[in-house]
Every structure is written in C-alpha cells, then in structure tokens.
C-alpha cells in the first residue's frame, strides 16, 4: 500500500497517495488541466508542456503529467502566468507548422482546435515558420501529414506500448523533429506497421487519417483505444 500524503492544489488540501502524478491527482479531484500529449493508459512524456504548473520551492515550472506528488507539495495549476504560457504554447503549435483548419479532415473534430478555444487564443502572435512538411501517402490505407503534427508522440507510444509494433519513432530535435516510420522510410515500405490504425485514433489533430476521409468528416475513436488498454491491463 502506497503511503498516504497530503498536498495542496490551488490552496485546497487534498489527501492522496505517493506515486501518482499531479495530473492524475487533479483528475481524481475534478481539477481540469489542459494537456495534449497525455493519453489515458500510455506512458506520459511531458511533450506538449501545456500541463505545466507552479510548485512551491521550485523555480521552474513542472509538467503535471510527469511530476509525482510528494508530501506537503503546494501546487498552483491556474495562475495568470500559467494561463498566458498555455496560450503562448498553443500559438506556437500553430506557428510552427501549417495548420489550415478550414480544409482539414479533422476540422471540428480536432483537439488542437478545441485547445485553442479553451486557452482563449485569439490569434497567433508569432511569425509563422512556414516549414516545408511532407505528406506521406505511400501506405495503402493511411496518410501522414507532417504539416498538422504537433509532436505529441501519442502515435509513437500507442504503436509501441499497445500494438507492440514500434513502427513510429522520432528523428531530429526542436522544430526539425519529425515522426518517422521505421528507419525514416516511407510508411508504405514499413516492415513493422501492422496497419492496425491505432495511431489514427489517438492522433489529436488531422495529421494521421485514413484515405477516403474528407474535409471535416474525420472519424476518430480514441475511446476504443482506452477500452483496449484497460482490457489488456497495460500499465
């Protein structure tokens, strides 16, 4: 049995257990923290930085998804500074690659769009990088459009941890980082991809989609992946 501990979130005392992340404790206590790279059942990696929070005694902001709670921890999740930082992060998602919502398959069914609304993004205050990002349609059933990828790596993790195929991985660093198939081969030439489609269902944007999907009509079933993780007892 993990040790019982007491922490404080936004001034409210909460009794919980050691070994849990700040994010999971917040969820248990109905405290909503914006997050995009987290997916229930997959290993958290702290990629999106949206769940950053302030912890007393630390001069750096800490990601709620990968920071474990500790006795007497005093956490702030919704300060004005954090709200502004979250808005900045979402604006940076939009400025880093080429997100054209109006023509996207995921339009109106997109977590990035929802997040922009949630954090109160009015417009993008940073110059667009206008990076040249390829579209890989070599897979017989699916397409990956790097223009729409926010590098949350959910696809990498679901492929590795749930499907066990590990087709997806990441190359390069910073804004040059890209999700790759096998050893940076065209997806259609992958020897590991099982064409299961799990990556499509966990993708928060329109970066991964099935051929035949049309504008604003992308069907995604992330809850099926959650069910599968629970039934298989992963983690």
């Amino acid at each position: 049995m993990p040790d019982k501990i007491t922490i404080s979130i936004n001034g409210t005392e909460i009794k919980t257990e050691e070994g849990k992340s700040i994010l999971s404790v917040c969820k248990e206590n109905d405290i909503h923290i914006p997050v995009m790279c987290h997916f229930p059942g997959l290993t958290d990696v702290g990629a999106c930085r949206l769940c950053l929070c302030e912890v007393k005694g630390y001069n750096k902001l800490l990601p709620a998804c990968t920071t474990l709670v500790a006795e007497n921890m005093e956490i702030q999740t919704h300060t004005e500074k954090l709200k502004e930082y979250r808005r900045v992060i979402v604006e940076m998602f939009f400025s880093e690659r080429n997100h054209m919502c109006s023509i996207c398959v995921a339009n109106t069914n997109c977590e990035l769009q929802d997040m922009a609304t949630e954090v109160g993004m009015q417009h993008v205050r940073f110059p667009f990088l206008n990076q040249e990002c390829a579209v890989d349609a070599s897979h017989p059933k699916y397409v990956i459009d790097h223009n729409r990828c926010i590098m949350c790596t959910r696809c990498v993790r679901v492929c590795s941890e749930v499907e066990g195929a590990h087709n997806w991985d990441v190359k390069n660093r910073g804004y040059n980082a890209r999700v790759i198939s096998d050893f940076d081969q065209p997806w259609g030439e992958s020897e590991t991809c099982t064409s299961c489609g799990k990556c499509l269902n966990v993708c928060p944007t329109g970066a991964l989609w099935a051929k035949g999907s049309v504008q604003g009509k992308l069907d995604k079933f992330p809850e099926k992946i959650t069910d599968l993780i629970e039934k298989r007892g992963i983690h």
Partner: protein
Amino acid sequence: MAETKGKKITISPVTRIEGHARITLQYDAKGKLDEARFHVNEFRGFEKFCEGRYFTEMPAITPRICGICPVSHAVCSAKAGEGIMRIKPPRIGDQLRRLIQLGQMISSHALSFYHLSSPDMLMGWDCDPDKRNIVGMYEQFPDLVRRGIRLRQFGQEISMYITGKKIHTMGVVCGGMSIPLKEEAREALLKWIPEALETLDMSLELYKGYYEKNKEELNVFAYHPTMYMGLVQADGTHEFYDGKVRLVDEKGEIVEDGFNPADFAQYIAEHPIAWSYLKYPYYKPYGFEKGFYRVGPLARLNVAERMPTPLAQKEFELFRQLEDGKVIHGTFHFHYARLIEMLSSVEQARDILNDPQILSTETWARGERNQHDGVGCTEAPRGILFHHYTTDDNGLLTKVNLLIATGQNNPAMNTSIKQVAEKYVRLDDVQEGALNRVEGAIRCYDPCLSCSTHAAGQMPLLIELKDHRGKIVRTLARGG
C-alpha cells in the same frame, strides 16, 4: 497636340467588380488611343502550393480560390479526382452537386446583376457616383433591390440548407456528395421558387425595356465578334454541370463539338503577358488573336441550341432574335444572358427538388487512386472551368493546372475596354461617366479577380494622366 504626347489614363482600382484590377489607357502622340489594358495585380499561387497534397483534398482546397463560385471549383476538383479514381458518382450525388451549383449560379448572377451592374442601367452611366450603387438604388427602386438581394439569398440558401454553409460549401467530394438532402431542407427550398420566378420575370421585363430605350447605344457598346466556348448536353441543350465542350466561331458555326475535356491542352493554349497576372488563352488551331474566344453566360447561350426549361426557352428565343443570327456579339447582352440563366437555374432547381429520389442517401461512391491523371470540367458563373491534376504513384499531386473562366475572357475584356474608351473617353475632357462606361464594359464579364467577396462600390477610384516621362499631369479622384 504636344501636351497629349504619350499620355496615359489609369483607372485604379476598377470598382464594382469582384477583386482588384486597374485599367490603363495609353494614348499616342496624336492623342489617339494606342492601347487599352486590363491589369490584374493579384497572384494567388494555388497551382503551386497544392502540389504535394493528396488528391482527394482538392475539393476542399480549391473552393477557397473564390468566395463567389466555390461550388464550381469544388465540383471541378471532385470530377478531376473521380478521373484519377476512375469512378462515377451515384445519380443523386450528381443531382445534389448540380443543385448546389445552380444555387451558386443564382447567387453569383444576382450579385453581378442587381448589386454591381444594375446601377449603371437604372441610375444612368453619368449619375453621381455616390448614388450609383445599390444603396442609392434602394432609395429609388426599393422593391427591385429587395427582390435582387433575396434572390441572391435564395441561391446561397440552397448551399446552406444542404451543407450547412452558404460560402465555401462542404460535402462535395470525389465520388459524389458526403451529405444527403434532408426533407425539411427540400421543403424550405421549394418555398422560395415562386418568389424567385416572379423576381426574374420582373427583371427581364426591366432589362428589355431598358434595351428598347437605349438600343442605339447598346448595339454598339463593346460590340466585337469572337469565338465562344461552353458546355452543352449531348443534343446541344444549354448545360451548367456536365456535358461536352462546344466551340463556335463568330458566325455561329460549330468548330469543335465534344472534345474531351481531358484533351483541352491540345485545343487551348495560354500566352503569358508581361503586364498582367492573367494569361491570354486562345484556340490553338486558329492561333493567337484569331483564336480568341469568350466564355460565360453570353457564350453559353451562343453555343446552345435550346434551354432545358420552358420559361427560359421562351426568353432564349427572344434573345436569339436580337441580332437575327446564330450568335449575339453585343457585350452588354451578357446581362440578358445572365438573367435567362438565372431563370433556367430556378426552374432546374425546382425540378431537382421535386425528384422523387432526391432524398436518397446513396450519394457517395468510394474508390481509390487508379491512374495518374484526372481532368475536371464544369461551368462556373463566369464561364467554363478546367482542373487538370497529375499525381505520383501514391496519389500526391505533382502538377495542378487550373484554367479559369475570367482568364479565358481576358483578351475579349481588353478589346471591349478599348472599343468603349475609343468611343467615349476624350483625352482633353475626361468625364467620370465616360470612365464609368469603360468600367461598365468590364462589369459585363463579371470578372472574378481576387475570387473573394467585396463590398460594392466602396473602393476609391483614381485616374492619373501621365506624360511620356511618367509625370502625373492631372489627377481625378472619386469615392473612398
């Protein structure tokens, strides 16, 4: 005449058109009009940035070319995609796309006629420019203006009721329509029909009355014979959506009948020009200049043998009597042709809505990439439209070629403004009304330049007279 040496008149921007453009009138040393040029100053780059996209995305991307005629681009894209897939949509999918396209014809033509061009007719070419717009019109002709606005609304409601969006319609996909028609939408749209027919009857009477009164001027206004190109059905009936491409010469003789749209590059060539982003297309076998042709409402009525609906057919017969011949060359009659096409669109929309199977959910055929190339062809409000896509083995676009209606009318628009300027613009006494006639010649074609919606008549007009060294010797300004 030394003071007129090398003078140039610039009309910039041209008002009451869709987009930004300018006109320059270049005079020689003797004060004679040397060149009249219609400059399009915008560059959009769709052909380039669509490269690398997956071909089925195109029906969503290309409608963004234009806020007035997005449906034609969507339909043309979907057809090109269907060429790549080698599939055909189910009948009802086709009918729904046709219905939305008819709605677009109504809204676009209504915008052109009531909002942009009718002030010239009803208020007069020389009327105060502050009054010569739809707001000024409303003071004098409230019923007509209200009806014109509502007619445009009806056209957009067709798209709204079917797809949920008035502009940049959704649902047009490679293989048909992803959104079927609902019963409540059908009923709501049918209620509009009687009012729309009444408005068009009233407008046609008005146009014919105006023509009778101003016959002398209109018969020579930008009158110049050209070839004409448009779609017709297999039996030669007027057609908007599908059909064969027909070209007639200036005497109305059929030059081409049913060339495969996929082979258009064999028939039509484009000549780039240094002073405009619009190229000069021409009919290849006749060569540059002799092969200039016109597209759009006037061209469609000139290539057609009959209209598909009874009321429009009655008007078509009267239209054809205008010049006692097979073809009508008077540029002003673009407006008449536009009214007849709106009438036919309303009748056709009614017939489609009354189709007993129109509520079917079998609207979308699925398929995958089966060949590298696909060509789409349909009619946009301003004329015939071609999309030609080439893909790699995976369906990513490697080449996109769009042949757009306004571009095809470019040579004719330049001829029209030259004719009108020669007749009305006096270099020693430049009258605002004369320049408005030059703009009016352009408005006949209803050019869609930025392919975006604009408020009517709110842009400033600047006319500069420059000497041969480029020094401004006189400036006239209005509006703004």
